[in-house]
């Protein structure tokens, strides 16, 4: 409004000056008696006044409109600012009361926000560390020293890592880089205390291991004695006795397999029992095959390993568990392939995933039963007729492990022709994560 008022004042002033000059000129013409001249001058003046008036009115309107828009915009900004303040306070409340530790690092490595849980985990007080560079704090605070290199790594994607900060403190650290319109702004770090879960998981595993080992002792002795009975080490048996002992031996083998698989299941179902290290997948395949070479030779199976000439890169996996997956799949391939059959393992990289395929020329799986393949205790009807020892847990265990690695497992099979089991796991390479 102020601008519009100023414009009006200027217009009035100019008009007043103009009219004063005009009056002087009119007076001169009146004195010198020139009516025509006077007429034209008056007409000219009226036109000028009219044009100026229109122009000024237009300008004033425009200024008023601009002023109104400006005021509207200011009001909107104010409203947005208030909304942002409310949202910021909400977020700060959430961060403060979150059960996990939250730390926000700016792109210059200084601590922007830290909540009370993060203070507890890092053994610091907010006032000691806020707005200070993390690098400088490493010297003074031992726990920050432990996690510092991880938090300051120049990796620009999200990752999770488990770290034992102290004897009684194990945390899972999630690091999430923050970007605004592709510009790196800093990092959001979440500290999740998993000490209790780890302790409970270890206790559970220890308990189950202990039970399994207690069971394995008598089962092994039973296995050995039954085998020796069947081999005639305790003298010749009657036909009926031998048949019973053979059945007992089979049942015992099932029990041994089941106990072993129960231990595996207990381990794979623990969220925190996965330990990722750089793993040479080719090496794992070779060692599984070597472990089963006796069986391959006995059944005269033709085995082939297909892969590219270049060495397959190491990828981050839980070696023991992946070994178990490949072992289960390879063992199944051997069990359900006839004498002189074929097994082929192939390994390749497809769209950033390591894809492993184990193909056999065995009995295959009936199509109607393929949907239940990866469920607990599943065994195909044609498989049970073979009297092969199996707990029915191997594929369930394999699926759990592969999915824990964010991968997929699937099967293509035709009854009587054979099966191909595929596993696909994202390739998190060693060189893409700075340790």
């Amino acid at each position: 409004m102020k601008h519009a008022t100023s414009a009006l004042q200027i217009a009035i002033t100019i008009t007043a000056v103009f009219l004063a000059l005009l009056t002087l000129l009119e007076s001169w013409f009146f004195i010198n008696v020139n009516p025509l001249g006077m007429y034209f001058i008056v007409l000219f003046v009226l036109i000028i006044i009219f044009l100026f008036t229109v122009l000024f009115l237009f300008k004033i309107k425009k200024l008023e409109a601009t002023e109104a828009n400006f005021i509207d915009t200011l009001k909107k900004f104010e409203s947005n600012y208030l909304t942002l303040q409310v949202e910021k306070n909400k977020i700060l409340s959430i961060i403060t009361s979150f059960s996990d530790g939250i730390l926000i690092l700016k792109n210059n490595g200084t601590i922007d926000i830290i909540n009370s849980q993060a203070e507890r985990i890092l053994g610091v007080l907010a006032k000691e560390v806020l707005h200070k560079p993390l690098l400088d704090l490493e010297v003074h605070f031992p726990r920050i020293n432990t996690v510092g290199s991880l938090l300051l790594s120049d990796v620009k994607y999200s990752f999770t890592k488990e770290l034992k900060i102290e004897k009684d403190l194990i945390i899972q650290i999630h690091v999430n880089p923050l970007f605004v319109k592709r510009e790196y702004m800093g990092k959001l770090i979440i500290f999740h205390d998993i000490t209790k879960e780890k302790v409970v998981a270890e206790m559970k595993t220890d308990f189950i291991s202990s039970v399994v080992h207690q069971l394995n002792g008598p089962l092994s002795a039973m296995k050995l004695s039954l085998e020796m009975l069947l081999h005639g080490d305790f003298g010749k048996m009657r036909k009926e006795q031998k048949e019973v002992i053979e059945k007992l031996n089979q049942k015992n083998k099932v029990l041994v397999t089941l106990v072993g698989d129960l231990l595996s299941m207990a381990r794979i179902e623990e969220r925190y029992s996965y330990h990722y290290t750089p793993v040479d997948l080719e090496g794992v395949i070779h060692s599984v095959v070597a472990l089963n070479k006796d069986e391959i030779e006995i059944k005269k199976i033709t085995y082939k390993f297909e892969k590219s000439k270049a060495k397959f890169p190491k990828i981050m996996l839980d070696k023991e568990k992946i070994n178990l997956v490949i072992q289960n799949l390879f063992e199944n391939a051997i069990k359900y392939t006839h004498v002189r059959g074929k097994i082929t393992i192939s390994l390749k990289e497809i769209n950033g995933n390591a894809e492993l395929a184990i193909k056999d020329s065995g009995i295959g799986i009936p199509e109607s039963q393929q949907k239940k393949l990866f469920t607990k205790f599943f065994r195909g009807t044609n498989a049970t007729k073979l009297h092969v020892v199996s707990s029915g847990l191997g594929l369930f265990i394999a699926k759990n492990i592969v999915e824990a690695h964010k991968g997929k497992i699937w099967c293509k099979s035709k009854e009587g022709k054979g099966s191909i089991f595929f596993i696909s796991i994202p390739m998190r390479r060693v060189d893409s994560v700075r340790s």
Partner: protein
Amino acid sequence: MVKNILIVEDDDFFRELLRKKLLSKEFNILEAVDGEKGVMLIKEKKPDLVLLDLLLPNIDGFEVLLRVKGDLSTSKIPVIILSNLGQQEDIERGLKLGASDYLVKSQFDINQIVEKIKTLLDKPHA
């Protein structure tokens, strides 16, 4: 020449079965029921081969292996681990400590175990 095999196994029944089987294959058998006795017999008697369980009283099989392989006078004696422990980390640990082979009891039958023993005994040891 009759070969001497030392069985280090705390399960009496299992040890008895192994002894019976190996005697039938004309081996001479020595026995130890715990880790300490196992180490003592290995150093005294220098058997041609040791069948070693891992879960043993006193010191475990890994410690036995460590001591035996750490002693020049016994380091060349082949040791086959015969255990219920079947986890990959245990197998790797046993082989790394110098075991010539690692057999999980539930995965091998007695004849396979005997074949492994014969194969190792037939190998020349430098």
